């Protein structure tokens, strides 16, 4: 934490979001903390209902008003707590310094405006430019995101573009004001594989060119391995494991992470083994198991796991890896009883 480079661009501390329903409180995000450094691609991985989208939307303050933040929740962006900003100040940041792309580009683009105009709108809103300058900026952006024949495409409506093109337009719009943080919520889930590969390469290249930080939300471990620098694994509203992409895939510490990896059939393997599975399904958010939320699906769970909740702690002295488990897995994927004793003390 000495050089300026090491300063986190975004720091989330104890973010706790809840929704009260007639049946009780649902906590989509339960006291999570993480940070994003400048120029880093951080992936937030989890299954449906793990709270990954809610935690990302909190940064943009775009969550539904039903979602309440507990006092003490902090999202620091360049030293300012976003959760305490006035709406007017927030609007200055949104799309200008922090921008977002969504899963389905069809629903995020306005169907009755030409795409050139939609991109120009963002530019005009945040910067003082003449219409001519705005047009040049838009042309430049469309070229940058690899849209062929941008002059003609500018005057197209969203329905005239394919899914991959639309996602490129969304990316162009998100980059229009040279933001420092891009939040990408499942940016390739709705796309075909060959188009997905194009978009991932585009995001990676743009990141290298502009040095932007990216928070990538996905459920696809393949996408994570392809593009991320660091990974946060979420389960039931909590971060259960954190590490660099190499460490995490080499040696998953949390049984949930390992289970997720084992349940994806690999292309490079030959045997037609039975897939390893995680038994059961994601628990109902109203009836979360006591203790560790994963305990009733975990093959290594003991009685203690059902009583005491593990907290995210450093897994080793040398690295920044963190895991929330009483029995983190060892190098060969076995339970590390050694670690258990130190964790309890």
């Amino acid at each position: 934490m000495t050089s300026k480079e090491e300063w986190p661009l975004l720091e989330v501390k104890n973010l706790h979001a809840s929704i009260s329903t007639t049946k009780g409180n649902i906590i989509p995000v339960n006291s999570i903390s993480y940070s994003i450094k400048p120029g880093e691609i951080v992936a937030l991985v989890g299954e449906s209902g793990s709270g990954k989208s809610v935690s990302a939307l909190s940064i943009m303050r775009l969550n539904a008003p039903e979602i309440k933040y507990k006092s003490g929740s902090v999202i620091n962006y360049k030293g300012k707590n976003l959760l305490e900003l006035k709406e007017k100040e927030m609007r200055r940041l949104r799309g200008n310094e922090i921008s977002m792309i969504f899963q389905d580009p069809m629903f995020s683009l306005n169907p009755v405006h030409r795409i050139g105009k939609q991109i120009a709108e963002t530019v005009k809103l945040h910067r003082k430019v003449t219409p001519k300058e705005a047009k040049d900026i838009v042309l430049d952006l469309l070229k940058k995101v690899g849209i062929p024949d941008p002059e003609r495409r500018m005057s197209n409506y969203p329905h005239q573009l394919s899914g991959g093109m639309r996602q490129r337009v969304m990316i162009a719009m998100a980059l229009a004001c040279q933001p420092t943080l891009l939040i990408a919520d499942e940016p390739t889930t709705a796309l075909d594989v060959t188009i997905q590969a194009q978009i991932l390469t585009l995001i990676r290249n743009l990141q290298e060119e502009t040095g932007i930080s990216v928070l990538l939300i996905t459920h696809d471990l393949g996408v994570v391995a392809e593009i991320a620098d660091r990974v946060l694994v979420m389960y039931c509203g909590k971060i259960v494991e954190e590490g660099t992409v190499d460490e995490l895939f080499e040696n998953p510490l949390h049984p949930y992470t390992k289970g997720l990896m084992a349940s994806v059939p690999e292309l490079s393997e030959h045997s037609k083994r039975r897939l390893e599975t995680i038994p059961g399904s994601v628990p109902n958010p109203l009836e979360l198991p006591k203790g560790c939320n994963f305990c009733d699906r975990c093959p290594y769970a003991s009685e203690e796991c059902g009583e005491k909740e593990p907290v995210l702690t450093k897994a080793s002295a040398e690295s920044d890896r963190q895991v929330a488990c009483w029995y983190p897995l060892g190098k060969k994927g076995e339970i590390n009883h050694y670690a258990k004793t130190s964790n309890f003390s």
Partner: protein
Amino acid sequence: MQKPLISLKNVKKYFPVGSGLFGKRDRWVKAVDGVSLDIYPGETVGLVGESGCGKSTIGRMVVGLTNPTEGEIYFEDIKLTDYRSKKKLGKNLQMIFQDPYSSLNPRMTIADIIQEPLVLHKIGTKKERRKRVDELLERVGLASHYGGRYPNQFSGGQRQRIGIARALVLEPKLIVCDEPVSALDVSIQAQILNLLKEIQEDMGLSYLFIAHGIQAIKHISDKVAVMYLGKMAEFAKTEELFNNPRHPYTKALLSAVPEPDPKLRNRERILLKGDLPSPSNPPMGCRFHTRCPMAMEKCKEMEPRLLSTSEQSMTACLLYKDKIAT
């Protein structure tokens, strides 16, 4: 020699787009444009391709939900086109759908959903049907007392199990699985794939497994057909296809799949240029030539035929010559 269970012979399906004067149909989307395919008893044929390649349309034609515009489908040598044959053979052909939320009637109990096919085909007494439902619920990994509940009380994975039970109730010989796992969470997908495999081993039925997820296709299929814009690009034994892909599209498709291993990040990849052309106006000649990295001058004019490139594979590409002279 073994006879195919189901056999598609040069099947085509065209959908009209808009209409001209006096409702005259003049433009067509060629969703499926001349596909021949045999599925043998007890095997799984995977159908893979990107959106708009016609894979779901093939599935729907096989179970008789739509009729082919041209070409024939045979089930054990009986032509499957008219109403009478469909009614008689229909119970041998069942389907599992992609979305487990919209494919179950929310107002019916699970037991009613599963036994509905039996009721329609007038099989068994009430008691026998009920017994069969209980058996099936247990077969797909749900408790038999769940029969009285409604679909909204189940998670996506459980609903997909109910859909499988419904497909099994008539003891079909072929099940068309149309993207059965793509709407499910990763950890649930593996459970469903394992279940489908177990059922196949127990009952010896065949699957036509349609998916865009290549990992799932590889895991479950014996043979794989790769489709591109309504045509088959390559058809091969699974191992042959993955070890030795021949068609440039298959190669690109395989290399586009993100591998869950960061060490493979810098592997050499074939990145296709551009988008899928619209199926209503497919390119002349080879349909893939607009995006193909190996395209030659003649690809723009000549349409390649599906030829045997080895004993275990067929490819429709002008780069290859017929290896096995017919």
